[in-house]
């Protein structure tokens, strides 16, 4: 091995230098002794040195010869020492390389190295497993051509990104394997260039999300099925009650009509409850989709107020609108935002006694966009305030109220929606004074 040769060479040189040093020490010693015992032979002077002076001269000579030998040693071993240092550095470098190679090869994530044309140069085991191929089958193939037809446009777009050095970060795309099965993947491609090798290369990673996709799909299907199964019976009841109430089947007595109206009303509540439950489960299982578009918040508020007008009029509640610049044109999901506003306003109306007031403030400033709903209602007891946004929350002070019927899901839903949309909700409340909910969009 190269290292042993260099090491042997190094030791030889060191030994030689050691001998040289001993030789110098020995020679200088005998020379000094010679001079001291017989100075006339060399100089014309008389030297009379004490024992101590002799010792000093002698020690100086030894020190000088050691120093000279060390310098000789350093000079002679310069090459071998350098070579040894390089060898040891190479060894640790090789070790890290090996570590990285192992990580790359054995990582559970598919890695591929692409050339500038997007062709696969190298791939690790996970990548071969992902595509169900052996290395020869995949080498030289374009990475951006492994998509099913539906995703070819997207693949082409990503390929353009790649060619223009734009990093690709967690793009969701389908990929097709050798067996023809389609897998969902999150792909990322990063540029790899070094000063030594300036050719454009990319390191691609594939994150297989097929299972998550399947699960999401199953959850969405479940909610959709549940929604169908739960809504069909209430729709049936609704239509039968409609028929009876319309008088098409003959006149009803006052009592009969009253009964049917009550059933009809309860059924309507059931429709509302099912909607809320389904909205909650959609959010809970993460299948809520935010469909952002131009949204007119003041219009949404107005439509909710119209819906609530029977209760508002019945209780004589004063609605104080402070719309400011109206939040007429913001980017949001109007359907979801309506659920939020509907919940907040109906709570405010429900829990405000006769003659109270509800204030609606819409704030649209450079700093923040906010919806504030404030009431002079019964408030939320302080010790229960921390539970307000939890599922099935019902405050103690509403249990006795005739209109205290609620699912306990409303505020939970509101918070979930607002947070899914990237906003926040806060509230302040004092029992028997009122509550204020602040939504920042």
């Amino acid at each position: 091995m190269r290292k042993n040769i260099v090491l042997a060479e190094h030791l030889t040189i060191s030994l030689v230098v050691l001998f040289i040093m001993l030789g110098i020490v020995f020679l200088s010693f005998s020379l000094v002794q010679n001079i001291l015992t017989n100075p006339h032979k060399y100089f014309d002077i008389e030297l009379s040195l004490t024992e101590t002076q002799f010792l000093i001269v002698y020690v100086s000579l030894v020190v000088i010869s050691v120093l000279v030998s060390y310098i000789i040693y350093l000079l002679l071993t310069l090459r071998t020492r350098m070579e040894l240092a390089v060898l040891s550095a190479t060894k640790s470098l090789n070790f890290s390389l090996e570590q990285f190679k192992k990580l790359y090869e054995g990582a559970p994530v598919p890695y591929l190295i692409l050339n500038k044309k997007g062709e696969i140069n190298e791939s690790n085991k996970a990548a071969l497993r992902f595509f169900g191929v052996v290395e020869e089958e995949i080498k030289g193939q374009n990475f951006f051509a492994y998509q099913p037809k539906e995703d070819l446009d997207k693949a082409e777009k990503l390929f353009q990104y790649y060619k223009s050095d734009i990093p690709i970060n967690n793009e969701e795309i389908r990929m097709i394997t050798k067996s023809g099965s389609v897998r969902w993947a999150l792909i990322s491609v990063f540029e790899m260039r070094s000063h030594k090798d300036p050719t454009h290369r990319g390191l691609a990673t594939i994150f297989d999300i097929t299972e998550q996709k399947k699960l999401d799909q199953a959850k969405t299907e479940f909610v959709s099925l549940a929604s169908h199964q739960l809504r069909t019976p209430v729709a049936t009841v609704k239509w039968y009650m409609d028929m009876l109430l319309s008088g098409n089947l003959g006149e009803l007595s006052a009592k009969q009509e009253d009964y049917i109206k009550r059933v009809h009303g309860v059924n309507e509540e059931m429709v509302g409850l099912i909607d809320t439950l389904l909205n909650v489960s959609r959010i809970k299982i993460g299948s809520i989709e935010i469909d952002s578009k131009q949204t007119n918040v003041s219009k949404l508020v107005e439509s909710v107020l119209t819906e609530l007008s029977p209760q508002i009029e019945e209780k004589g509640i004063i609605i104080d609108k402070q719309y400011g610049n109206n939040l007429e044109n913001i980017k949001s999901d109007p359907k979801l935002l309506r659920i939020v506003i509907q919940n907040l306003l109906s709570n405010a109306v429900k829990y405000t006694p006769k003659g109270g007031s509800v204030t609606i403030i819409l704030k649209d400033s450079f700093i923040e966009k906010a919806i504030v709903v404030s009431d002079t209602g019964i408030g939320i007891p302080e010790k229960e305030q921390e539970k307000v946004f939890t599922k099935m929350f019902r405050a103690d002070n509403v249990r006795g109220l005739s209109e205290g019927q609620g699912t306990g899901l409303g505020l939970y839903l509101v918070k979930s929606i607002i947070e899914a949309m990237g906003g926040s909700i806060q509230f302040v409340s004092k029992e028997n004074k009122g509550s204020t909910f602040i939504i920042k969009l």
Partner: protein
Amino acid sequence: MSDENKKKILIVDDDENLRMVLRDKLSIEGFEVLEAENGKEGLKKAFEIQPDIVLLDIMMPVMDGWEMLGKLKKDERGKKIKVMMLTVIEDTGSIARLMQDGGSGYVIKTEQSMDSIVDKVKGMLK
């Protein structure tokens, strides 16, 4: 109104209760009402009877509403028949798809009263 002049409505829904209440209401309103309990039967009847309007449920066994709508609109015998979808799920994706597939309107079962359905049907026949 003689039977000949009566407008024909075909209700395609797997839920017998819903079919019955719709049939009763529409009959009272003067329509001739026919029923089918899935898309396959509905398609056959639609071709035979040539109804003025098909009230079509979406989720049904054997053949669902989407499939029946597609087949009806692709066929010469069904192209001109108006279709109103009956759905319990309000989702904008479905509504967009309905219009694209050639549907003429939709009813969200839990939201519309019987009278408003009759109004919609009459509106579509004008």
